[in-house]
């Protein structure tokens, strides 16, 4: 399960002040709490606030806390090294007063935790995934599990398409090239040669680029093989269809009502694709699903985009295939040992690298904060959650 968690280095501190993620976010007071002010205890006395047990913590927690400090007493179990029972004792909190947990995949909500908290009725996770929560135990105790992730699939799909366009058009490489090369006309040339050079350059900015980087391959008509046609894979397919790409896929099972051609194994999918986009979750079956055989099947003009998990790809083999030009290029948001990235990739301009940022947009964080606040508000005011059980 550890692989399922985002390997995020949180720069969190106890005072709850914004970490560097949130430079771009403003921190308005939660408006819903103001509207239903009568129902909430706004006393500064911490003991009077409703306790909210926090595991993880969710990446959005610093902003959530800043927006909701007057609504809840936050019990930051994530920052404690001791077992939960001891932590609660130290906080002078009766375990039976805990009705709600706010969490994310970084820290498990196990059966033991659930059994310790007899009044627990709702678990809010800011992630789409729920592997960190013992759902069986929740079901046994009638505990609602609510996901308040933002438009995760949209953001990740946007990143996948962005990486693909960047790899194919060498946008990042060109941007860097222009910033270095831009106005740096050779100053020590004789005037005559400078004029000629200027004449040449003025007429052929694009030609010089092509000389440096080679041609771009057109996206139209390209065959895109999606590995994992869940929410993210479907979102990727929808976007690339608008570019006149031909979509095909591999998934655990063929999806009914889907018109894209299905391939039951990834090698076959790769053999019939120009681009592979990895959108599936990581488990025993999918670890290193992209191996040398698949990459050779994809071929010398092939591009791999990974917005799933690093370990979906045999990373050493990927590096070898890129260095030996067995595949054309790659766009990677995830790696096997984040934040370590194979050094060999840094020299390549047909590779675009991203620091596991596919769902880190301020819009989605704001939305997730809002949904989390609303889910908890609704729960505490009515004591039942109105947000339905999450769907996978």
């Amino acid at each position, binding site marked *: 399960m550890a692989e399922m968690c985002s390997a995020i280095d949180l720069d969190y501190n106890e005072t709850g002040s914004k970490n560097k993620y949130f430079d771009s976010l403003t921190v308005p007071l939660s408006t819903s709490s103001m509207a239903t002010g009568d129902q909430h205890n706004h006393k500064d006395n911490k003991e009077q606030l409703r306790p909210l047990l926090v595991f993880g913590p969710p990446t959005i927690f610093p902003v959530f806390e800043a927006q909701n400090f007057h609504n809840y007493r936050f019990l930051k179990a994530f920052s404690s090294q001791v077992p939960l029972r001891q932590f609660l004792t130290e906080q002078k909190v009766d375990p039976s007063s805990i009705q709600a947990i706010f969490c994310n995949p970084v820290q498990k909500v196990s059966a033991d935790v659930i059994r310790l908290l007899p009044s627990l009725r709702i678990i809010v996770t800011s992630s789409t995934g729920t592997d960190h929560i013992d759902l069986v135990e929740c079901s046994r105790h009638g505990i609602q599990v609510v996901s308040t992730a933002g438009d995760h699939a949209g953001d990740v799909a946007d990143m996948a398409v962005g990486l693909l366009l960047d790899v194919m058009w060498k946008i990042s490489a060109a941007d860097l090239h222009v910033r270095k090369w831009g106005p740096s006309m050779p100053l020590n040339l004789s005037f005559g040669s400078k004029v000629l050079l200027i004449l040449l350059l003025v007429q052929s*900015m694009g030609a010089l680029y092509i000389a440096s980087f080679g041609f771009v391959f057109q996206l139209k008509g390209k065959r895109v093989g999606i590995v994992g046609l869940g929410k993210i894979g479907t979102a990727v397919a929808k976007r690339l269809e608008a570019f006149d790409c031909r979509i095909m896929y591999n998934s655990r099972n063929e999806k009914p009502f889907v018109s894209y051609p299905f391939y039951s194994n990834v090698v076959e999918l790769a053999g019939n694709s120009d681009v592979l986009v990895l959108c599936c979750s990581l488990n025993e079956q999918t670890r290193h699903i992209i191996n040398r055989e698949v990459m050779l099947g994809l071929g010398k003009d092939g591009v791999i985009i990974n917005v799933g998990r690093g370990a979906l790809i045999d990373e050493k083999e990927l590096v070898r295939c890129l260095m030996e030009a067995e595949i054309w290029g790659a766009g990677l948001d995830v790696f096997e040992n984040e934040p370590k990235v194979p050094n060999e990739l840094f020299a390549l301009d047909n590779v675009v690298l991203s620091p596991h940022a596919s769902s880190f947009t301020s819009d989605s964080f704001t939305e997730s904060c809002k949904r989390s606040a609303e889910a908890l508000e609704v729960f505490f005011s009515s004591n039942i959650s109105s947000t339905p059980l999450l769907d996978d």
Partner: protein
Amino acid sequence: MGSIGVLLVTPVLPYLEQELDKRYKLFRAWDYPETAQLLAQHATSIQAVVGNSGAGADAEMIEALPKLEIVSCFSVGVDKVDLEKCREKGIRVTNTPHVLTDDVADLAIGLMLTLLRRICECDRFVRSGKWKHGDYKLTTKFSGKTVGILGLGRIGQAIAKRAEGFNCSICYYSRTEKRNSKYKYYPSVVELASNCDVLVVACPLTEETHHIINREVINALGPKGFLINIGRGKHVDEPELVSALVEGRLAGAGLDVFENEPVVPEELFGLENVVIVPHIGSGTLETRTAMADLVLGNLEAHFLGKPLLTPLF
């Protein structure tokens, strides 16, 4: 046809140059240190000029070529050709529409994504080793944003189609409202800018559209707005754009074209809220080849007395 003189004013795709050389008597402008010298020696042999987005045929050149019959542009934009002069003298002008529409639209979306999601910055962040010390910051979501298109021609429509795949709302400004369009029309560029998150320039460059993106439009687009230019550099008042970016009055810009290519304003190089690429909008091999074939096809048709493939007039 080997005796027909063709003047190639600028280096182009090698395939095109080679074919022109095979079929015609080819004069390359850069072989002559002075244009005057070229004209003095060969003016009366030249019946066709081939140019591109960077160089074409201005009034002076047209006047100096008494035998000129056709200007065939290796581009869709013809702002470097003095069209009025050509009309006056009955000189045909052709360009390369359609074939590069998809490329330019793809790049426009590519610029939007790399700009809003800071993909170039992310790439540099990883390569520099900074990721070991902490995550990159939050970026701006693209899906669902409102995209404003300036000029709803072939390219504008292709951009709209792609943006809709990202659940974007589309609005546009055009000289005249397109009756059959499902997109929201605004009767002025300022109004369009006020009502969109990402404004993309996709119209031809003419006298009317010169500096169509000016201070007023930039201010209307605002500190949360983004500008994408895949048209011509001269669509944008560049100094105004630069100061808006530096001062934070505009959230960011993705630029394929500049007022004085290849000069790119130095102030942009230090900014993380810009994506700069060197006029690569039609840069796929397939498209450049198709463009070249159009140039060759138009010239061939003209000299055989057949209908031109893609004439402007």
